[in-house]
């Protein structure tokens, strides 16, 4: 049985908790209940005929008062950087977080997610801005459910591949 720890990071209110709920429980809630500390969920997935248990650590988003709790990132195999398409600042924040995490954990797999695709007409974030980073990127809507599964499974596939590479003989 293969298990991986994955962290959801990003500024407050970008939709980290909503994405996890959509993926794990297939539900969405308009209400905003900010996450305090961390909330852990689990989802078993199967990619390329390989099963994997994702332990999803939904971390409290950063704001001016609270900083990301880096100790919760310890041991993560990958992470999901979430930005809110309606707020350009959240993308900058995501890029900043990516740097900090790389400094702390070293280069580990991650994907960038621009959420709230159902509100695309209100987006401040331009595709060109996203593309400049050259990271694997997904556009999702936790509300509509679009792109969510693809995003999680996409990261799972990256993890499985990197796991296989690390297990391969000669390494």
């Amino acid at each position: 049985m293969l298990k991986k720890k994955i962290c959801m990071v990003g500024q407050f209110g970008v939709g980290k908790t909503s994405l996890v709920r959509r993926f794990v429980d297939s539900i969405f809630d308009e209400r905003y209940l900010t996450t305090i500390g961390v909330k852990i969920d689990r989802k078993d997935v199967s990619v390329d005929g390989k099963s994997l248990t994702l332990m999803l650590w939904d971390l409290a988003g950063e704001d001016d008062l609270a900083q990301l709790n880096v100790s919760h990132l310890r041991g993560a195999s990958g992470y999901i950087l979430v930005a809110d398409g309606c707020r350009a600042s959240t993308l900058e924040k995501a890029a900043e977080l990516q740097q900090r995490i790389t400094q702390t954990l070293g280069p580990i797999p991650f994907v960038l997610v621009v959420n709230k695709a159902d509100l695309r007409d209100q987006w401040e974030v331009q595709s060109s801005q996203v593309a400049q980073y050259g990271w694997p990127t997904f556009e999702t809507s936790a509300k509509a459910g679009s792109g969510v599964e693809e995003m999680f499974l996409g990261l799972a596939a990256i993890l499985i591949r990197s796991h296989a590479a690390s297990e391969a003989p000669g390494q």
Partner: protein
Amino acid sequence: MPTDGAAKRPAADDQPLAELRAILLGPDRAAWESMRQRLDNPSRRAEDVASVLAEAVRLRSDAKLRRALQPLLEEALQLSVQSNPRMLADALFPIFGKAIRKAITAELDGMLQSLSHTLEQRFSWRSLRWRWESIRTGKPYAEIVLLRSLLYRVEQVFLIHRKTGLLLQHAATDAAETKDPEMVSGMLTAIQDFVRDSVSVAEGENLETVRMGDIGMVLTYGPDAILSGFVRGVAPRNLSRVFQDTLDTIEREKAEALHSFTGETSEFDSCRPRLEACLAGQGKPGERKATSRMAGALLFGLPALVIIALAGWWIYSAAVERRWSNFAHRLSSEPGIVLTSFEKRGGTHYLAGLRDPLAADPAALLYAEGLPSDKVTFHFEEYHSLQPSFAAQRRLVELKEELQRRAFRFPTGSSAIPPEQRFLLDDVAAQILSLIKAASALGRTIQIEVRGNHDPAGTEQLNSMLARSRAQNVEAALISLGVPAARLAAVPEDKERETCAAVKEEERLFCRSASFRVIGVP
């Protein structure tokens, strides 16, 4: 390569060659010279080696170098310990001191726990039941105790990878209500992070207990894994030791797998029996509270009761003793009593000394104090106290007795004081006056009866009249001599008749008399 010897002895015909050589090899010669000096000079050589030693060791960090260094290091350590053991002790103290303290604390806790447990078992009704069961079934008592007295239950055991918080292995009893153990394991790790971030804890300190209602957690830590269990009831302290031992074994057996863990947990399936072995505990956890209260009562209540009883007894007997010594004090301050000894033998108090017959009665004083008469023995020798009040009292008694020995005699049929007895009147009057004076000095008011007597001859009527007038005549004579009339009372004394009936005629004279009786003097 040219040698120094050759350089020092150039032959005269070699001169041009030497010059050529000097031209060709001059600069190199200087370099060789400097190299030669470096090689010949041991301190220079040491400097050179020192400057590259660290790098050289780093480059050769393989088993060969380690093997080469091992005996040297061992010997050096041994020498160092022998010559200056303190240095090594100081260096190791921060590591060992803490570990030793922890081990001792755990051991003591365990001991206390088992002491209270043993007490519980010794003194309860349950233990009697178990003894009976042991006799009945032929099983050893210890086995029955073990079977019946485990008051906790480990319901779930989690083996968690420390760094990732991922669940490596899990075991649960059938009865356990199992939430998703994967999430539990993650949350447990998150809680650790939370505690660690919230309060500044020293390196190596870990969250050791979590408790909610009846459920508690055992948490033990290894370098790469955490072994944790949900325990219903109150687990004995040594349960942590069982967990720690299990974890140590797993860490040892799976050191490599744990260290390089990347998410594959099937590697740890073989640890499951070890986890299942930790699902210990039987009995009803609910009973624990009552029994531990009982153990507490036995452990602390019984000695406390004994202490209270002893203290109560001590206070009570001190109060009783104080009453006895107060009584002895009072006796010794009583006029006419000299207390020479006061002691307690067995349960009886002995009071001994001297006592004037006129002094207060110790038994009466004892009664007035409310002390038990069966707990005392008095031994008082009689003596006459020189106390003025006692002397005066004694004098009063003497005067009384003297007066009561006086009498006036009368001829047959006469009540007039015969002239030959008149001279006695002054004497008796003076005696009565000093008696009155002595009595009033002691605060007493006395009364003197003048009693008239008669002999048996003659009629009763006549005799009665004779007796009365004899008393009255003496009374009147005494009043005329200054004795206050209020202190005198003339009374006929008919009772004398019977006494006088027996005597002979010549003795009857003594029956025809007037005598005195003093009233008011003891």
